[in-house]
């Protein structure tokens, strides 16, 4: 059975600001930016992965009541949400490039048993690993 993950939801505090961050700072490409009433379906592709969509979604009604939306926003803003890990070919080069564009890092590229890893923060508060895998794995 073939089964692959094609979409990842990323809760963001503001879709316009998130769009700027993911495209201008991380280098993602806009996949879809569509509206239906107040709902905005906004997805981007990671720079090296046109087949995967990151859904940049604002918590809110009608999926969530106002209280739940505020709770999710607070969790994101407090920095506890980590949606996943990006893989790069050259962690040091990516770190230099993204730092130069103003991306905030929690840790610099460091040797780990699985490769070289740095951790970064998006502009909403989500954290991601950015890892260059060891050749052996």
């Amino acid at each position, binding site marked *: 059975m073939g089964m692959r993950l094609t979409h990842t939801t990323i809760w963001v*505090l503001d879709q316009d600001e998130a769009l700027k961050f993911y495209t201008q700072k991380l280098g993602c490409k806009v996949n879809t930016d569509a509206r239906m009433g107040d709902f905005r379906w906004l997805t981007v592709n990671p720079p090296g992965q046109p087949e995967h969509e990151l859904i940049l979604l604002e918590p809110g009604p009608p999926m969530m009541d106002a209280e739940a939306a*505020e709770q999710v*926003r*607070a969790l994101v*803003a*407090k*920095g506890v949400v*980590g949606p996943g*890990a990006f893989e790069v070919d050259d962690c040091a080069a990516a770190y230099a490039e993204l730092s130069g564009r103003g991306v*905030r*890092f*929690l*840790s*610099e590229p*460091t040797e*780990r*048993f*699985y490769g070289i*890893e740095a*951790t970064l*923060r998006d502009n*909403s*508060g989500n*954290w991601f*690993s950015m*890892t260059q895998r060891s050749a052996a794995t």
Partner: protein
Amino acid sequence: MPDVIPIYVHLLRAKDLIDRDYAQQLDVAALAREAHASSAHFARSFKRAFGETPHGYMLRRRIERATELLRGTELSVTEVSLDVGFASLSSFSHAFRALVGESPGAYARRVRAGVPAPIPACFTLMYTRPLGSSSPGQGADRRPG
């Protein structure tokens, strides 16, 4: 009720600064600047948002980084204590024991004798900061370094 989200966003900048520069001598003024907050309100706001004071957070971050160095390198306890920002071995040992429950030397001997757990470091960074007791003994009152 005031919107707390922008406050969290700013406070997170200071928390991230601690995570990145924990080994430096970060004072409250520098952290407050990073959070665009006044020094007077900063520590209280930080504690309300994250459940512990900036100083307590930094202390636990330093000790967590120390456990990683003791697990993953052959550095001596003294070298580790300097690397994570303590100016004296005794304040390091005191804080380590209060949070981890054993001395750094005993911890190093124990973990270096075993097989390392195959857990990505970004998750140990986020999830293994030692909680110890809610207030890390007298060490919390003593500013490291």
